[in-house]
């Protein structure tokens, strides 16, 4: 009566050729950057350029997470940069504490009486918090002395925040633009809170000197930059694999169904809120990890990093790159953020029109806005949608 399903069981990678392609390209890119920066010296690929590329890879990773939560699950979160920033703060606390500890221990080494542990701790606190007029180590910094504990915080704090926020929002069936506004409010509230001097994270000074890695101070920045670049590439590769696996199977099918018609999914017996919560939380954790790799390369983090606009940019990258295909998010994040640093970093020459000079630092946002409108109007599938035209000719 029926024929058994004859589709052979294929492996995950065989069923998703784009994953292998992506990992191959990422590997080649990493190799290329390594060879160019090491083989030919800083003349060809400067240390700061390696850092920018490493940071871009971190931005690509959070963009992939954003694509999963928005492009696949239909939750337009405009707050994922908050999780990115929290990850950065969490690792920044250890970086600052451990480096300051090194400086304090060194300067007290010549003291006639060896300092007690409490004295060392006070000296560290004064060093770090003198700038906001405090000399006490806040309770928030209880784990800052320990790298493993702070690494746990990198994942745990964004995860918990997302879990609680998501549980409250999804349980009340807040969807669409209302949810977007709530996530904006979340990141804005967090940013404003951190701007205050007495929150224990140095107010608008933020955490700085993060490029100096304790224990590796004897190494030149060019080496450290390359190491972080590798770590970022590895994180992007693993994150991409994780998310590609997540969205490929039946789980991916269910979250895409939630995106298209969540009420109908409920009538099939799926508890929609649990799925959304899982996706929201998991992507928040990955965003935190991406932030923890990004800020040691940036060297500084302050509350402006998690201003609402940052999360909106994230959505713009994914929209420009093309939603619902993962590599689209990578393309969008890479193209737009690199273009952004080129235009605003003085890379692009001013255009003299005679009566007016276009200074790209000021006009970049206009260009980005026009680009966004153009993509929305003419390529609703984003840049990566152009691949479809090349591959599938009717």
């Amino acid at each position, binding site marked *: *009566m*029926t*024929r*058994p*399903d004859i*589709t052979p*069981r294929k492996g995950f990678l065989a069923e998703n050729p784009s994953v292998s392609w992506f990992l191959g390209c990422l590997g080649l890119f990493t190799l290329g950057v390594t060879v160019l920066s090491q083989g030919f010296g800083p003349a060809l690929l400067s240390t700061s350029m390696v850092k920018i590329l490493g940071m871009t890879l971190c931005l690509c990773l959070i963009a992939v997470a954003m694509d999963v939560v928005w492009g696949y699950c239909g939750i337009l979160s405009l707050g994922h940069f908050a999780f990115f920033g929290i990850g950065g703060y969490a690792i920044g606390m250890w970086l600052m504490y451990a480096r300051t500890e090194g400086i304090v221990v060194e300067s007290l080494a010549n003291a006639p009486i060896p300092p007690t542990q409490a004295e060392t701790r006070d000296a560290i606190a004064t060093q770090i918090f003198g700038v906001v007029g405090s000399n006490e180590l806040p309770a928030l910094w209880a784990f800052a002395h320990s790298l493993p504990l702070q690494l746990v915080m990198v994942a745990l704090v964004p995860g918990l925040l997302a879990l609680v926020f998501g549980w409250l929002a999804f349980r009340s069936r807040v969807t669409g633009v209302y949810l977007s506004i709530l996530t904006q409010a979340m990141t804005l509230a967090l940013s404003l809170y951190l701007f205050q001097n007495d929150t224990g994270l140095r107010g608008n000074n933020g955490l700085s000197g993060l490029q100096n890695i304790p224990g590796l101070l004897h190494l030149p920045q060019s080496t450290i930059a390359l190491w972080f670049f590798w770590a970022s590439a590895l994180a992007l590769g693993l994150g991409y694999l994780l998310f590609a696996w*997540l969205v490929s*199977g*039946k*789980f991916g*099918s*269910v979250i*895409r*169904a939630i995106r*298209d*018609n969540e*009420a*109908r999914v*409920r*009538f*099939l*017996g*799926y*508890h*929609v809120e*649990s*799925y959304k919560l*899982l996706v929201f939380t998991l992507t928040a954790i990955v965003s935190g990890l991406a932030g923890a790799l990004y800020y040691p390369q940036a060297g500084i983090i302050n509350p402006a990093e998690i201003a609402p606009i940052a999360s909106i940019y994230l959505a713009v990258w994914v929209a420009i790159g093309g939603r619902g295909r993962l590599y689209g998010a990578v393309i969008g994040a890479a193209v737009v953020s690199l273009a952004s640093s080129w235009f605003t970093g003085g890379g692009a020459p001013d255009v003299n029109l005679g009566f007016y000079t276009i200074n790209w630092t000021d006009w970049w946002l206009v260009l980005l806005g026009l680009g966004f409108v153009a993509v929305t109007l003419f390529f609703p599938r984003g840049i990566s949608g152009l691949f479809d035209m090349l591959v599938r000719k009717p």
Partner: protein
Amino acid sequence: MTTLLEVSGVSVTFDGFRAINNLSIQIGEPELRAVIGPNGAGKTTFMDIVTGKTRPDEGRVIWGEKSVSLLGMSESAIARAGIGRKFQKPTVFEEQTVRENLAMALRNKRGPFDVLFHKRSRKGAARIAELAEEIGLRDHLPRRAGALSHGQKQWLEIGMLLAQDPRLLLVDEPAAGMTPAEREHTTDILKRAAKTHAVMVIEHDMEFIRRLGCKVTVLHEGAVLAEGSLDHVTQNKEVIDVYLGR
């Protein structure tokens, strides 16, 4: 036959309009039941109440041997308890393939982690193939559901309902947009399902209902007007006045 679903004294008001007015209705397992009534009689609202989409103002909805009240349960919990629904307007996931649509509906564990670590089994694949055969979409499994014709989407949704293997099937206008031959096939499927399940069919087409050959409940203004065989209700004076006479 034991009572599977018992709805008693249910009323619901939308902005002052009484859509359901002290409605009581029962269905056993197994049983095939047709529900008819003019537009606005409350047929779809009744299904909304049973499936948890609409909360009634008063009344009771009792389910199963353990007499569980469905009123406090979420839509997904009610679906997991064993109530499946086919909507009047076919609602399938158009961006996904026929196979994916059926796989999602297939009776399996529904928790996010169960689904995440779900392994496609030979048994599941065989069941999908069997269902696809039954609904005439065997050659369309890899196609996008959005590319199907209206009639095929109807079939797909019936297939998804069967894939869920619920104890109670609520079927809203299954024959709309179907050819006579397809209608005949639909009645066959429903009658077969009703041998082991409770099946409740909303339909306007009298010929379709005659072919089902089952007990008929006539709704009017949110309440039961008459109940019995088709011949019995069609001879009822009130039914003729409100519905058939016109």
